[in-house]
């Protein structure tokens, strides 16, 4: 059962300082056991297969004055760029972005 989630329209899959792919729609959820997972869509034309094959990868979701960051434990990319991911714990970065805030619920 989902207890918490973050939905947004702009995020990235990062390998070190590289962007392995940009994400144009995503939903990150945390279940009652505290485990984070994500679903979303990779933006066509932004996926670098070499970088996406490297580890560790991170899902980085910017908000107005920072970004949430999760290590991606397992990533499955489906046809059409949809993806599902099992995430590690969330960390919050400081001032980091000019993108629009995400919607939390």
């Amino acid at each position, binding site marked *: 059962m989902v207890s918490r989630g973050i939905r947004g329209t702009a995020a*990235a899959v990062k*390998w*070190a*300082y*590289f962007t392995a792919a940009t994400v144009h729609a995503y939903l990150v959820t945390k279940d009652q056991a505290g485990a984070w997972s994500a679903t979303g869509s990779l933006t066509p034309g932004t996926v670098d297969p070499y970088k996406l094959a490297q580890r560790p990868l991170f899902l*980085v979701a*910017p908000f107005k004055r920072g*970004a949430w960051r999760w290590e991606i434990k397992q990533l499955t990319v489906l046809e059409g760029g949809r993806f599902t991911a099992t995430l590690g714990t969330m960390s919050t970065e400081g*001032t*980091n*972005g*000019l993108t629009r805030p995400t919607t939390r619920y």
Partner: protein
Amino acid sequence: MGSRVRRPDIDVLDISGGDTLTVKRYLTAAEFRGVIKASTKAVRLDATTPRSDMQLEVDPTESGIATILAYLLDWTFTDYDGRPLVIRDQPVTVVRAALDAIDADSYMEVQRAIQAHDTAIRAHLAEEKKTGRTNSEPTSGSPA
């Protein structure tokens, strides 16, 4: 045979006033091509030169900023109110706008620091080629 790819390591370069620049240690082939492409412009020898005979000329001004944009990941610069000038993870247009906004002396200092880093890394790579050791640690920069 050594590895032909590099770990995406970073170096932190100290500059004046206690500020630092965080830069990529190495450029990838794509980033290197990007610097070359941005640093050159097609020139026509005269008005009668056919398009197929146009030559490439290095543009030193663009070469400098292209090298900065390729390497620079972050810095500690702030504005006059002490707010960070955010460039980390920003699109290249935002980074370029920030570089355009700082004063000319600071810009030249950033350019000199990054060019020195580039020179040191090239020397390190040449040394690796000579000795046959790849992915060794360069002696310049301060690994973060």
